[in-house]
């Protein structure tokens, strides 16, 4: 199910602007890895490079190698849609398809992959919603619009939609930044539960959240505006938050900058 991700000297560009510089890190299967750092330091760019969503933007490109179980996802013969199916993504703002019902949203990924059989779809829908801790709240109104749910429910719906296609890795780009504390807690509980099945990488601005949920933490930073983001330190979460090796990390987590 879950797979190891390794980045070797990854640099990402928007046109001629270098957003991240020479990032290398290894993410072990079935762990939660948090990426923290000030705004504009390239956390999200790196995250989007992992499932090749970075290149969706015009002019965006990447250098270096990114492997998932030793297969370079940037090899020229790799099907980009297969990469994205294997590495799911949850976005900053809940983005259920506005024209679809709750049910249709959850099975949208399966439909895209050619699953047509109603019984399979029904089963996957229930399973994913249960896994996303949303089933009990929506089981009586699966035909209602997904966009009619509350923000926290919508985000869990998006998580259900992501895990319905059974990815190996789930990327989360500040999944709780648009949510209230209760909904945030619900998502964090859910992440612990999902850790048994998936490798999770989460970008967050909330350092308590990183400390609460993650096994490993990577700290990104930039020297000044316009410079590319760098991975300053990457270590066990406990070490990063209690005894970081780098002065910059310590300054950031103690609130002295950023």
């Amino acid at each position, binding site marked *: 199910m879950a797979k190891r991700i390794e980045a070797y000297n990854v640099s990402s560009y928007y046109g001629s602007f270098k957003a991240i510089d020479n990032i290398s890190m290894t993410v072990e299967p079935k762990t939660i890895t948090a990426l923290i750092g000030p705004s504009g330091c390239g956390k999200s760019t790196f995250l989007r490079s992992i499932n090749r*969503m970075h290149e969706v933007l015009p002019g965006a490109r990447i250098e270096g190698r990114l492997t998932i179980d030793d297969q370079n996802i940037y090899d020229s013969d790799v099907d980009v849609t297969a990469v994205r199916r294997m590495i799911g993504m949850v*976005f900053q703002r809940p*983005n259920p398809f*506005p024209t679809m019902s709750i049910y249709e949203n959850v099975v949208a990924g399966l439909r*895209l*992959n050619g699953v047509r059989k109603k019984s399979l779809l029904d089963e996957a829908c229930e399973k994913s919603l249960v896994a996303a801790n949303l089933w009990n709240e929506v089981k009586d109104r699966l035909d209602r619009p997904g*966009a009619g749910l509350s923000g926290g429910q919508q985000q869990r719906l998006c998580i259900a*939609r*992501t895990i319905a296609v059974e990815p190996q890795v789930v990327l989360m780009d500040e999944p709780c930044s648009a949510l209230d504390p209760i909904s945030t807690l619900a998502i964090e509980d859910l992440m612990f539960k999902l850790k048994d099945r998936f490798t999770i990488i989460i970008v967050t601005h909330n350092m308590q959240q990183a400390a609460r949920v993650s096994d490993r933490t990577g700290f990104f930073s930039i020297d000044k505006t316009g410079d590319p983001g760098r991975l300053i330190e990457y270590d066990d979460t406990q070490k990063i938050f209690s005894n970081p090796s780098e002065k910059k990390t310590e300054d950031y987590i103690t609130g002295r900058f950023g």
Partner: protein
Amino acid sequence: MGDTSPRSAETGTGGTLTTDGRRGSAGGGVPPAHTPDSPGLGGGGGLPRRTRFGMESGFRVLTLAAGAMVLVIIVAIAVFLISKAVPALRANTENFFTFNGWSPNGTEPRFGIAALAFGTVLSAVLALLVAVPVALGIALFLSHYAPRRIATPLGFVIDLLAAVPSVVFGLWGRDVFINPVRDFSVWLNEYFGWLPIFGGDGPFGRSIMLGALVLAIMVLPIITSLSREVFLQTPAMNEEAALALGATKWEMIRTAVLPYGKPGIIAAVMLGLGRALGETIALAMTLGITFDISANLIENGGNTIAANIANAFGEANDTGRGALIASGLVLFAITLVVNMTARAIIYRRREFRDSAA
């Protein structure tokens, strides 16, 4: 405040603004005046008074008048049409709805709408069948496939197409475009003549097909530019959601862009249909002008309500004009039904759109 209360809800904003403005000028060092109406007050006693006949109520009256104008015009047109049509319909010696022919100017007026209404709907529907797929294709190309330096000028050219007067389209259709269409019709007749729509012995050319194709070109820009706008409005986060699920570009368009744009597409198509149904001069110039109900698309012939009005108006007497006005009423009714159907379709899925916002 308080001398006229019924509109206090609407005037609340205006009142606040005024207060702010006055407070600002008072703070700026203007000494308090004594007359309650002079600006720059605010330091004196109580809140400034609401102006009774200011911009706010003036603008209200203006918009109300503009809104009422629409109703007045509609009613006036309806009254005019009906008052002119009824005497002619009374004088008609045939059934208006079933008779195929148009000779309302004699002593025994005989005219019927059947063939005209049929031709109107047939040519418009055919035009849409051709134009809609092409227009949606162009719109998707412009919004999602073409690089910007191609999309912008191409979009401009499409909009330019909408600026060509319909009489020019008519001339072009009748003198230039007719040649390839005639050749194509002969070819169709030779190989697909066993189909009733492509049958007949000719002559070919000034046919429903020519009229419909010219119409298709005319409605193309309006459908294209409206759907392009709609497609561009698809939230980027929905497109990314589809891509992140492993959708190809086309699958992303089917999952996120087209469903989101559906009401807009329907509206665009209905606008195009409205133009196609009402188009007059281009069809008057390209159609063969007959009064048969025939499904044959390639033989000379065909007629529409609007084209018939343009062709027959010159030599019409009083009854003739009344008859033409009656046909105009039918066209109005057809357009109305089309519009209401479109609205019903859009309305049905409203819940899914409202919650999207």
